[in-house]
């Protein structure tokens, strides 16, 4: 890219500010914990066992998600069928589901009392045993297979159709097409998809414990929990959080080194024009199995909760309203932060990768440590309880930033490569450039990022559990409160409300971004 002969200070400044804010949100709480800690902490054998289990489960979950996602993505890439668009949208659903809701849905299918066990029972067979490492991996695959599929599908659709025509004209068929076109693409795309899923599974705690079958399934996040609330050893909590960061940083370094696929980009609507696409029945079967795997637990959640949806206490609806405003605030924050960072990253000559990796590192941040650390920082100067909702919005925004960055950075880079010089030559700078050049061309990726950020924020319990105020409960918190007071049925109803709102938010913004297809 051409070297610029003029200054672009304001954009770099804004981006640097956003990056610093992000760094402060990641490292500040950690520092605060160390500052408040009494004495030097050391890690014991149990902590290292937790580290080993965490790496093991995250590696397995990521590997299986990615390996399964390859044939599914290929089937989606080369088949056009009724409901394909809906299926791709549905791929977003498990990812934005609150974890406990998803676990209950999975248990309703795979649990001892679940549908599959019931069917086995009719045949006189023993029930499925889901609890253990395989259960943890199953749940993580449920969450992340769709995400991996979306990432890999992107890779397929990025292969120019001319190349498929070229191999067809050279009479290359079958396996050789894979060797010449698909394998190089997969080599580019798979490591990145693997690392994204790995990072997400790194901080898993409730899922790992609930399905892990016992303390064998202790992850680092649970060890942090223990250090904080069982031993009140802030130093050890912070040290463990650092170890978690270390694992995340190592993963992020590898991820950036091997190049990550974009989250979306130009339409997922088209299919690959692959002239030899044998085994239609095989693709069909595959897509059916995957849809069933994704839809069955979701359906169970809905069937379970729907009867109670319309008889929920009023406070659940007001919590839903509160969650909606938190989600919208969080979404706005995430989009602004991601956009300013993206604008800076594409202009940086050096350090762009570093800035991007800071964006990913938040995935390895311990929610408990972030919450407790922010509390320590805020308490002397402000009332953390009064700030509960804005803080929740900010932390949620931070957690969805990696996905927004993954989407926006390549999009901005694309626009600057195609139209940057034209805009420069017409003296379109600052706001004018943002309004007339970037905004209209970024609508799709912005819509997608915004939808994802809003939905993720909606479903996340976030830091609010640490400093909640009875009158400012969010919907996930209200759902947990219903559960904590025996009202499991109403909690199931609240879960359906939550699922519905999350998916609607995602759908509305994602659609909004696509409304003007005139690009």
């Amino acid at each position, binding site marked *: 890219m*051409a*070297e*610029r*002969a*003029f200054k672009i200070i304001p954009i770099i400044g804004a981006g640097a500010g956003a990056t610093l804010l992000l760094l402060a949100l990641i490292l500040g709480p950690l520092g605060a914990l160390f500052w408040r800690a009494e004495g030097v902490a050391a890690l014991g054998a149990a902590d290292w066992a937790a580290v080993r289990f965490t790496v093991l489960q995250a590696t397995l979950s990521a590997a299986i998600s990615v390996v399964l996602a390859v044939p599914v993505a290929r089937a989606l890439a080369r088949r056009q069928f009724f409901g394909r668009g809906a299926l791709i949208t549905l791929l977003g659903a498990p990812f934005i589901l609150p974890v406990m809701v998803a676990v209950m849905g999975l248990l309703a299918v795979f649990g001892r009392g679940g549908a599959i066990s019931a069917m086995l029972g009719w045949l006189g067979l023993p029930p499925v045993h889901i609890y253990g490492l395989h259960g943890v991996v199953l749940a993580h695959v449920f969450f992340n297979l769709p995400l991996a599929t979306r990432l890999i599908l992107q890779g397929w659709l990025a292969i120019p159709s001319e190349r498929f025509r070229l191999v067809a004209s050279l009479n290359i068929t079958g396996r050789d097409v894979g060797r010449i076109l698909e394998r190089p693409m997969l080599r580019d795309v798979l490591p990145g998809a693997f690392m994204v899923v790995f990072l997400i599974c790194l901080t898993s705690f409730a899922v790992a414990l609930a399905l892990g079958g016992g303390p064998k399934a202790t992850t680092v996040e649970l060890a942090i929990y223990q250090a904080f609330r069982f031993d009140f050893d802030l130093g050890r909590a912070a040290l463990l959080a650092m170890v978690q960061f270390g694992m995340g940083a190592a993963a992020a370094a590898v991820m950036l080194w091997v190049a990550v696929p974009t989250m979306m980009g130009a339409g997922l609507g088209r299919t690959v024009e692959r002239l030899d696409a044998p085994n239609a029945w095989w693709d069909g079967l595959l897509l059916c199995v995957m849809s069933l795997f994704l839809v069955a637990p979701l359906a169970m959640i809905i069937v379970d909760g729907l009867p109670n949806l319309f008889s929920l206490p009023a406070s659940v609806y007001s919590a839903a309203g509160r969650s909606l405003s938190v989600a919208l605030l969080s979404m706005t924050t995430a989009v602004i932060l991601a956009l300013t960072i993206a604008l800076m990253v594409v202009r940086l000559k050096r350090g762009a990768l570093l800035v991007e990796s800071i964006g990913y590192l938040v995935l390895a941040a311990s929610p408990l440590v972030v919450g407790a650390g922010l509390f320590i920082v805020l308490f002397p100067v402000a009332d953390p309880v009064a700030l509960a909702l804005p803080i929740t919005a900010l932390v949620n925004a931070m957690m969805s930033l990696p996905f927004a960055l993954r989407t926006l950075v390549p999009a901005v880079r694309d626009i600057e490569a*195609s*139209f940057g*010089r*034209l805009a*420069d*030559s*017409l*003296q*379109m*700078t600052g*706001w*004018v450039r943002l*309004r*007339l*050049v970037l905004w*209209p*061309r970024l609508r799709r990726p912005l819509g997608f990022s915004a939808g994802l950020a809003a939905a993720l924020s909606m479903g996340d319990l976030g830091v609010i559990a640490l400093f909640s105020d009875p009158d400012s409960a969010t919907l996930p918190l209200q759902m947990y409160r219903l559960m904590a007071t025996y009202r499991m049925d109403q909690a199931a109803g609240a879960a359906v409300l939550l699922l519905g709102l999350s998916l609607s938010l995602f759908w509305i913004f994602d659609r909004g971004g696509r409304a*003007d297809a*005139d*690009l």
Partner: protein
Amino acid sequence: MLTFEGVGYTQDAFSLQADFTVPIGARVAVIGPSGGGKSTLLNLVTGFLTPTQGRVLWAGFDLAGTAPGARPISILFQDNNLFPHLTVAQNVGLGLRADLRLTEAQRQQIETVLARVDLAGLGARKPAALSGGQMSRVALARMLLQAKPLVLLDEPFSALGPALRDEMLDLVADLMTETGATLLMVSHNPEDAKRITQSVVLVGDGVAHAPVETGEIFANPPAALRAYLG
């Protein structure tokens, strides 16, 4: 008057030297092998690249430190000369105000230049609804409105067919005559150069040579040009 005063540009293994002057109102073709530095020469003028030595001056003023858009220059690139999400009128209007807050008089001006390039009534369309030739005309209309004294063309018509390209070149020549602007045009086609330019800058072997009269250079091509023409 455009002056390359001992200009040098070096990046990695690539280098380019230029030390000559282009008089006001001249129409100059820039010719040479691919990768020889034609676009580099233009980018040194536009400001997308900064000379590693020497100065580029317009009318005696050093252009260094002036942003591309603030220089007395209109540019047409090889592609992406129009924003696909803006209408024809908006794309043209950018030549008047980058923020598109246009007065009624300015809208009238846009209509007038669109009519001048035979696009009357197409202002509301988006570029996707235009033919290749029409898109070139929109860019030229904007160039007219910009009314900058120096016009740089970086092969903007290379994707057009021969007849259409000639038509565009003729239009450019007419517009240059009307406005009195100076033209620097990159081309790999000697016919283009012969058609509308008076002199030729030959770029090759790391040097942009001083302009030579067009008829003369093709009549007695130097070794480098002979090699290029084949």
